């Protein structure tokens, strides 16, 4: 996809600057969490979106307040854009009460309907049918809301992917399916995952429009998401968007990813979404080096404040284990 300058200019300067900020915030936050992990201060595993931050920052930035996202495990940017604070994220990682799930669940399993976030389920692709149901509710009530969901390349092999894509297409539901094609599913390369070259080929099997976009290009993902969200909102049905990208860390932080050719990583290092976004901002005359340093400082401070918040946040107490198995009527969405 080659973006012409006219298309780029349709993205408002403040929007692009804000996305740049979230890109930075995501990177800095996840780097900090990785550092905490190496110090043995994190409970459980750490999954980052390093090198892929543009995708979820961009799709989340396209949405209206009452739209919904059903993210997967590499969508930290989307959490932040939706208003989850770095402190909440770290508290979540530490199993603190200040995390969105109050210690019941961990790491990227952040869910909060008030901020329009469906909580991730480890079982990959499980939330794709759920996203179609969110869209169905909008359709049933005649609301012009949309839902955006994301899956990995690996996740598209699961039956639930198939059932969700098909249902969305048959009923023309207002849902956008992102696919974060980072070329590996844990250690499994794309060639052992599917016999097609582009994941987007799968969309055609459902009679659903599909697109390929450079997942490391913030503006490109934004424009693609915008088009798809617009169509969904207009009642024109779902879209599948394959974002070509690369997982720059191991699958999780304990994985050194020896199975990934170093050369491939070197190549993709050149395509890092942050410098790419900076070049764009400069070309458009929207920001300069000074601005970038300012943002860098700002997010660092925010992340440190987050660490402090999380560390101060109390751990839940044992008996809280027993709470919340069942919902009460007042907790139902209305």
């Amino acid at each position: 996809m080659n973006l012409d300058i006219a298309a780029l200019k349709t993205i408002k300067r403040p929007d692009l600057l804000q996305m740049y900020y979230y890109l930075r915030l995501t990177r800095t936050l996840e780097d900090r969490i990785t550092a905490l992990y190496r110090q043995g201060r994190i409970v459980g595993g750490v999954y980052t979106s390093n090198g892929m931050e543009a995708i979820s920052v961009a799709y989340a930035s396209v949405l209206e307040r009452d739209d919904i996202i059903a993210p997967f495990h590499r969508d930290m940017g989307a959490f932040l854009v939706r208003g989850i604070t770095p402190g909440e994220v770290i508290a979540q990682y530490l199993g603190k009460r200040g995390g969105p799930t109050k210690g019941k669940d961990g790491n990227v399993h952040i869910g909060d309907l008030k901020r329009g976030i469906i909580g991730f389920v480890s079982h990959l692709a499980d939330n794709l049918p759920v996203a179609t149901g969110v869209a169905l509710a909008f359709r049933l009530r005649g609301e012009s809301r949309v839902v955006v969901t994301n899956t990995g390349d690996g996740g598209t092999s699961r039956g639930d992917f198939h059932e969700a894509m098909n249902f969305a297409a048959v009923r023309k539901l207002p849902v956008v399916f992102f696919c974060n094609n980072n070329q590996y599913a844990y250690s499994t390369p794309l060639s052992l995952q599917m016999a097609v070259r582009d994941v987007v080929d799968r969309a055609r099997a459902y009679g659903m429009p599909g697109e390929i976009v450079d997942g490391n290009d913030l503006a490109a993902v934004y424009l693609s998401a915008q088009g798809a969200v617009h169509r969904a909102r207009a009642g024109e049905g779902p879209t599948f968007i394959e974002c070509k990208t690369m997982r720059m860390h191991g699958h999780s932080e304990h994985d050194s990813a020896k199975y990934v050719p170093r050369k491939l990583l070197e190549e993709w290092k050149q395509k890092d979404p942050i410098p790419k976004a900076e070049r764009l901002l400069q070309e458009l005359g929207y920001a300069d080096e000074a601005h970038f340093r300012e943002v860098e400082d700002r997010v660092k401070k925010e992340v440190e404040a987050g660490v402090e918040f999380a560390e101060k946040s109390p751990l839940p107490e044992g008996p809280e284990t027993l709470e919340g198995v069942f919902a009460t009527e007042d907790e139902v969405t209305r």
Partner: protein
Amino acid sequence: MTTAVHETKAGQEVTYLEAISQALDEEMTRDERVFLMGEDIGPYGGAFRITEGFQKKYGEWRVLDTPLAESGFVGAAIGAAMMGMRPVVEMQFADFISCAFDQITEVAAKNHYRWGAAVPLVIRAPFGGGVHGGPFHSECPEGWFFHSPGLKLVAPSTPYDAKGLLKAAIRDPNPVIYFEHKFLYRRLKAVLPVEDYIVPIGKADVKRPGTDISVITYGAMVHLALEAAAVMAKEGIEMEVLDLRTLIPLDREMIFESVRKTSKAIILHEDNKTGGIGAEISALLAEDCFDSLDGPVIRIAAPDTPVPFSTPLEEFFLPKTSDIVAAARKLAAY
């Protein structure tokens, strides 16, 4: 109030099947958030014709024919439920619920506990044998879900309970699996109250009071227990027939009360014996009524095999009134 899909005159008897149909109709009229999903429930009215005429009244979105994909449409129902809808999903046969097992146990059951999202969802599962259905059209899958915290399970044995429990399930803010027994569909009739009523989830019911032996059961087996109680009454033994109605959460108080009174218990179910619900009830009695028990707690259940097809095999497989009578005589002699 709009007219019912099928008019019933006051004092007119309705079948167990019609009671289910009435509950759906009345709830859909009462609450526009209620909608139905499933295979062939629209123009066809469902494999058992429970939703016959519904699509005409409520339209093709509120009575929504799905693709053949149980995981997909249960997932979709979960998503819609989280958005404040009240989906009622039909399994064409309870047996196919295995295809949606992951969505039910990992997504629906755990969402509220993990991140506080209420999932007010009802899954209707036509279950049970005695209808020459063979291994895949006769199953009793309740045992699997009995072991999944976060779900509620109900299983009515009469038209009255069928209607009242379905209404309660639809109004419950949690995922409820509603086990309706196929064998009872057209074999039971009753006159139901004209006014709106529910049968509260979590409350068992004494279907026949007695002082000598408690028979704890649910579903179609309630009627075998009543038959056996009539036989035993002639022998001077008064059996109390306790219909659980709700399987999760179990009405422990009522179970304990009955067994403390009679000191003897038979647990009866059509599901396979090993790991069935009877095991739990027996264990609860061992824990909480040990000092009141005057004899072993006897379980009567199907043997540990799939449901066989051929008539003599299925007859052998299903618990019989004579089994209950034999056990009662044995206990009475204790």
